[in-house]
């Protein structure tokens, strides 16, 4: 009886085994499958589609991850996704093994892997031509040279996270648009070296831009919105070395739906009016801690933002009861108002607003990120 069962299992082809393996959902089942015998081990490795190392604050865990990474990469030739978080000492040499999965790799994440340099990117650009999404968050050593090489090799790039890559300048950004026609999501948070002129001539496919704490110049802002396709823009804590307000240029982004101007200290009423009239599709707008916006600005928003659903005015110093009333008199689609800590708003003002607009939900929480989660755009379906 036992002999017959064993024979039947040996006759199952690899295709059958892969089908069976793909139906296993839990990690422990999959590991158990692989440890049964050499053949099943081989099937498990062929069927492995992703390697994900999560962030951990334990240095021992990092060492384990770094040690077994090369073995895993060597064994798994059909990976779609490799996500490494926190391997700060990972050298460029470790990336050589990505060539084994080469053409099937679509998504790479080197989150906080600050040991990666331009040489590593060159390996990626040669070995992974079908790359769609790449995260280089906090890879401080990446320069324009590495970025150019990367783009020349990976034309299919759609999502690129360059947060904290402080050595990058506008030249590197321009290289992205020259070589990657499908690019749709870019994160340049904290990249102090960018003024924005590198965005000149960017395609209409660019729909999401995160530029937290950047030092974009007024000309740079004009170039950033020049593509016409921008739907989500995050300029939280935009720095301005001259103290001048260049944000009226955002009014040229006609397709804009989500705008985060939290803590844009130099924002003026003129810019608010320009944005409100230039971006008719705006759905969610954060003006939290924007002290430069006064009654003319709030009136403009009330009058012109006909599709606005969610508005954030937390801790604005210069919104008074009149401004709140102007918002209430307009903004026909408003559903949620985040309002708290505004010194000039009285309880009477809030009460009048509630009576005039009973369907608008008033919330006191302050939200840093608005709109769709940009992280989702870096995960494969």
């Amino acid at each position, binding site marked *: 009886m036992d002999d017959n069962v064993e024979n039947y299992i040996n006759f199952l082809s690899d295709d059958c085994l892969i089908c069976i393996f793909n139906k296993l959902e839990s990690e422990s089942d999959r590991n158990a499958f692989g440890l049964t015998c050499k053949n099943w081990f081989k099937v498990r490795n062929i069927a492995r589609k992703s390697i994900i190392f999560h962030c951990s604050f334990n240095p021992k865990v990092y060492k384990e991850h770094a040690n077994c990474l090369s073995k895993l990469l060597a064994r798994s030739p059909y990976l779609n996704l490799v996500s490494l978080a926190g391997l700060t000492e990972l050298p460029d040499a470790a990336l050589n093994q990505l060539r084994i999965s080469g053409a099937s790799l679509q998504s790479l994440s080197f989150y906080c892997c600050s040991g990666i340099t331009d040489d590593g990117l060159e390996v990626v650009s040669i070995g992974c031509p079908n790359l769609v999404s790449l995260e280089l968050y906090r890879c401080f050593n990446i320069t324009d040279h590495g970025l150019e090489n990367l783009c020349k090799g990976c034309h299919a790039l759609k999502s690129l996270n360059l947060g904290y890559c402080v050595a990058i300048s506008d030249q590197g950004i321009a290289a992205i648009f020259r070589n990657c026609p499908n690019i749709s999501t870019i994160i340049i948070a904290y990249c102090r070296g960018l003024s924005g002129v590198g965005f000149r001539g960017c395609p209409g496919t660019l729909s999401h831009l995160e530029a937290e704490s950047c030092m974009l110049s007024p000309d740079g802002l004009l170039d950033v919105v020049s593509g016409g396709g921008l739907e989500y823009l995050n300029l939280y*804590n935009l720095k301005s070395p001259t*103290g001048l307000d260049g944000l009226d240029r955002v009014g040229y982004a006609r397709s804009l739906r989500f705008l985060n101007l939290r*803590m844009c*200290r130099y924002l003026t009423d003129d810019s608010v009016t320009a944005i409100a009239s230039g971006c008719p599709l705006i759905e969610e707008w954060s003006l939290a*801690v924007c002290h430069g916006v006064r009654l003319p600005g709030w009136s403009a928003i009330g009058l012109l933002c006909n599709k606005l659903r969610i508005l954030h005015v937390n*801790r604005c110093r210069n919104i008074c009861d009149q401004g709140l009333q102007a918002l209430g008199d307009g903004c026909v689609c408003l559903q949620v108002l985040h309002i708290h800590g505004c010194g000039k708003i009285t309880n009477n003002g809030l009460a009048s607003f509630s009576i005039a607009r009973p369907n608008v939900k008033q919330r006191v929480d302050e939200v840093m990120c608005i709109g769709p989660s940009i992280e989702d755009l870096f995960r494969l379906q």
Partner: protein
Amino acid sequence: MAELVGPRVYSCCHCRNHVCLHDDIISKAFQGRNGRAFLFSHAMNISMGPKEDRQLMTGLHTVADIYCRDCREVLGWKYERAFEESQKYKEGKFIFEKAKIVKENW
């Protein structure tokens, strides 16, 4: 550089919120947590943390940390009470760490 008009203002290093005036400086010879600090008689646009007793270089004091009201960065502390007679002059005054404040256009 624009010509200076008005009082010389210091701003929060992170978000450029105006926090103190140069004219309110009482002393520049203080030591903060990570370097030089200045003693100011007034502060604006800041919020205060809870009071706590701290042993500083000059003795035991009751202090409260001060935060930038906009970005909540810790900028220094306020002296609430001093326990030695020679330190009483500090009561009600503010310490801003030099590294946390920047000159606003002057």
